[in-house]
């Protein structure tokens, strides 16, 4: 089998026999430019530009205008990008084509925008498009035309967009690492500008708990919620610098260095890392302050549910859209048992209610799980969704009002006692954090333990192919019911914590959107991957809380983010290595090809 193996890492460049590379594609630039123009018009017409015209982000630059300016910059950078280097081809050489492609895209975006400006100037479209406000073109501050009249404005739009597009394209003239550093700097700049109130809160929080002098930093950075111009420069430089620092070449990754140590030292390093991590997490609520701790607690409760649903959907492959039912069962069980105002009126302490939460959730899991044993995929999805709605409506109903309080819910749910005289409830978010954290840790531990257990392997087998699993001796009934029960119990914990945190339960907290949110965050985080679920929960639950000022645009952005994320990175933020391969069929083939080549 003597065959020439061409090394895959053969140097590319001016080597002989290499084919010329493809340059920046003008066609792609045209398409991208038109799309960008439509996007720019969309954010103008739906009121995002006007709505955030007052909200300054960086010095005098408002968020509204930033929206509009970022679009040509981003599209210019995309359009000015040369296609990926193919094996056997010479790397494309950066040159005038990059900024030209960017400028072309920017210009086309500007043309679309100019058409829109002329349209709204000539015709009154406000009867239909209610958010096309006069401040876009007609009255000051004329956001779309940069303060100019229509004629000069259109010319300015063409020039500015083309220039920004060219700037975006010109980024590709920089060496890779430097370009990324610039992008990192810009991202930092925008994040720091948009999250100004959050950052100042954290800085003040650090000072109030640790006595480190950080509050003046907040004052130096921000003025009226916007980064000051000098601060913006510093943030940019720090952001870009950090990137360069962290990606220094020849630097051995910490992970690799640890792996080189002897076993014993490795263990010490691991334990020490864990201890430091726990210590930092322990300090976290003190640093964040009550508001952010509260947001974190909220995210934590969702994380708990997500870890549970991850067992059902991620591990066992059972698509459950009615997961909120178990959350509600947990919340109502805890509420009925701990509230002196409930129908039982026993007013137990939280911990005494927990065994009953487990019991109730497990029974609910069995009740939902048994009828659906024979159903698969989409049948399962809609039936479980139905169970979720059934649960909510029963808790809401006048029929069961004597037990669950109907629309008035149950109030005065007990706090979580931690020590004699120390209770954590919604009013003590920093203390409550430790309760949530403990439960999350427990759930994560359960997840990891189950993943490598007998039942975990049974689930994986069942997920891939039920019949094959069965012939391998997996008891499908038991495996499915266990998945439902364990998932239900974790959601039940989430519910109990939610009841204690909010201090009351209302049926309106258990709408189908909760199930969907939890499902979305495990998939966006990376299905079947525990770290992925953690990241997903923090980003998708925490961020919307922090971005409250975006109001109804939150959901618009949320929807767009979901589509973008799934199209661009379907395996999630932190994928489970075992499942990634399933997602990338093509790459799988490629891997097989490479492997075969190596053995030949």
């Amino acid at each position, binding site marked *: 089998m003597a065959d020439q193996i061409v090394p895959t890492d053969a140097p590319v460049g001016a080597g002989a026999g290499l084919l010329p590379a493809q340059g920046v594609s003008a066609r792609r630039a045209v398409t991208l430019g038109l799309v960008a123009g439509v996007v720019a018009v969309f954010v103008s017409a739906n009121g995002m530009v006007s709505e955030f015209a007052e909200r300054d982000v960086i010095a005098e630059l408002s968020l509204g205008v930033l929206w509009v300016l970022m679009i040509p910059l981003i599209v210019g950078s995309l359009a000015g990008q040369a296609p990926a280097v193919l094996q056997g081809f010479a790397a494309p050489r950066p040159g005038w084509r990059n900024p030209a492609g960017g400028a072309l895209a920017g210009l086309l975006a500007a043309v679309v925008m100019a058409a829109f400006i002329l349209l709204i100037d000539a015709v009154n479209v406000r009867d239909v498009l209610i958010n096309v406000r006069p401040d876009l073109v007609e009255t000051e501050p004329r956001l779309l035309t940069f303060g100019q009249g229509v004629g000069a404005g259109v010319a300015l739009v063409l020039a500015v967009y083309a220039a920004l597009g060219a700037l975006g394209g010109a980024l590709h003239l920089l060496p890779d690492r430097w370009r990324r550093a610039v992008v990192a700097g810009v991202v930092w700049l925008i994040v720091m500008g948009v999250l100004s109130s959050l950052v100042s*809160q954290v800085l003040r929080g650090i000072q109030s708990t640790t006595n480190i002098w950080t509050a003046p930093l907040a004052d130096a950075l921000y003025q009226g919620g916007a980064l000051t111009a000098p601060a913006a420069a510093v943030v940019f430089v720090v952001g870009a610098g950090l990137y360069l620092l962290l990606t220094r070449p020849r630097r051995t990754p910490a992970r690799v260095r640890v792996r080189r140590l002897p076993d014993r030292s490795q*263990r010490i390093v*691991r334990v020490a890392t*864990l*201890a430091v991590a*726990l*210590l930092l997490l*322990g*300090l976290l*609520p*003190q640093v964040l*302050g*009550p*508001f952010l*701790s*509260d*947001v974190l607690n*909220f995210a934590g409760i969702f994380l708990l549910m997500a870890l549970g649903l991850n067992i059902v959907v991620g591990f066992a492959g059972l698509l459950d859209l009615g997961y909120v039912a178990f959350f509600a069962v947990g919340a109502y069980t805890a509420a009925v048992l701990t509230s002196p*105002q409930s129908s039982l009126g026993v007013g137990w302490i939280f911990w005494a209610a927990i065994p009953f939460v487990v019991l109730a959730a497990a029974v609910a899991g069995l009740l939902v799980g048994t009828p659906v044993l024979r159903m698969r995929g989409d049948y399962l999805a809609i039936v479980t969704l139905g169970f979720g709605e059934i649960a909510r*409506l029963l808790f*809401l*109903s*006048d029929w069961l009002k004597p037990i669950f309080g*109907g*629309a*008035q*819910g149950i*109030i*005065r749910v007990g706090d979580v006692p*931690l*020590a004699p005289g*120390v209770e954590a*409830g*919604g*009013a*003590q978010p*920093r*203390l409550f954090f*430790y309760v949530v*954290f*403990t439960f999350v*840790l*427990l759930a994560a*531990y359960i997840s*990891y*333990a189950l993943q*490598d257990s007998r039942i975990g392997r049974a689930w994986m087998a069942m997920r891939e192919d039920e019949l094959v699993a069965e012939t391998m001796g997996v008891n499908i009934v038991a495996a499915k019911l266990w998945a439902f029960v364990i998932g239900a119990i974790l959601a039940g914990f989430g519910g109990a914590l939610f009841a204690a*945190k*909010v*201090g*009351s*339960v*209302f*049926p*309106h*907290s258990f709408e189908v959107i909760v199930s969907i949110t939890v499902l979305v965050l495990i998939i966006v985080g990376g299905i079947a991957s525990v770290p992925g679920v953690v990241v997903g929960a923090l980003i998708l639950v925490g961020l919307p*809380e922090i971005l*409250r000022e975006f*109001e*109804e645009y939150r959901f618009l952005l949320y929807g767009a983010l979901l589509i973008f994320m799934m199209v661009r990175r379907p395996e999630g933020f932190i994928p489970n290595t075992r499942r990634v391969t399933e997602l990338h069929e093509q790459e799988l083939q490629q891997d097989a090809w490479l492997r075969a080549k190596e053995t030949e």
Partner: protein
Amino acid sequence: MSGHRSLVAPAVISVIALIAAACAPDDEEAAPEEFSPGPLGAVTVAPDDPIMIGVIQAISGDTASLGVDQVRAIDLAIADRGGELLGHPVETQVEDDACLAEGGTTAAQALVANPQVMGVLGTSCSGAAVPAMEILAETGIATISGSNTSPALTSDLEGTQGAANQPGYFRTSHNDVVQGQAAAEFAFTELGAQRAATIHDGDPYTEGLATAFGTSFTELGGEVVLATAISKGDTDMRPVLTEVAAATPDIVFFPIFQPEADFIVQQAKDFPALAETQKMMGADGLLSDTFVVIPQTEGMYFSGPATPTGSAYEDFVAAYQAEFGEAPIQAFHAHSYDAANMLMDAVEEVAVEEDDGTLQIDRQALMDQLYATEDFEGLTGTLTCDEFGDCADPKIDIVQNTAEQQTIDQVRGNVLFTFEPGE
């Protein structure tokens, strides 16, 4: 690895327990020497620093208009004092609760995080007030709502404390019990109805009001022949209306919201037993310009807080219109205006000014001052607070939408009956 994991969990839990014990809350503020604060502490406003008022309202979601209206009213109340109190500028920190219990928690938490917040105006919805009050009461922040109406937050008006009542909670809006009584009394005595049907939509507000109406109507001697409910998002009301028609009520009380109420009145026209709209009665949630223009609402009755009268109110509306380019949208703007003034008046009473201009506002004293409010002259009437925090001068109007009325203001003006408890 798996060998270690069994050790990790207990280790982690004990570490957390240690941290938790070490970090027990330590929120007390250092007391200044001259001024000794009460048991709830005090707010210290340094010279030239602003006095902070927290505001929790629903300013996003489907109830946004309710909150936006009140935020504007609060701004006007502050502007009427030149934006100043005791020589300090007054600022608000507005938090959105989207009318949800979870939102109430987060919003309250955000306000508690700011030690300068001396009082809170809100919330819009009772459901958000319950959890928010637990947090605000813990910190001892006095709170006045201009639109909560749930009896649970105060009392049943007969001396029984509501389950969610917290010290430091006040409201200038009426208690649901009053509106239920008003609607029932109008239906029973004025219209002579003997048989009533109620429909709610599962919202705590509408459910509470429908129940209050039913209780009062039965007490008066009438019969509730059907107490039913629909769900939010329902569009096909014909099945439930078939049931309602079969019960042959003299009056149908459905204190719900749009768009479900639109479907009810529009589809009721196909039922001979319900075709006379004089049998239909809604509540303040339906007193909107998009509802009363529906042809089928002609002849319908509405209960709701009485629109204030008098020159002070007219001035207020004029100022509102000048400032925001439109008239007030919902019914509770005047209540929030009064709430803001009540709070600021109380601050003027209890604040202690030190030599250097520092202002000390004792939280307990502020609360006590508010509980002692008596005969406060506001836009909504003469307000006196009871021991559970109900301060409203509750006047409920019953209005009718007839062919002559074109706009919501005209409908509001067509008062058939005014109910004032104790008169």
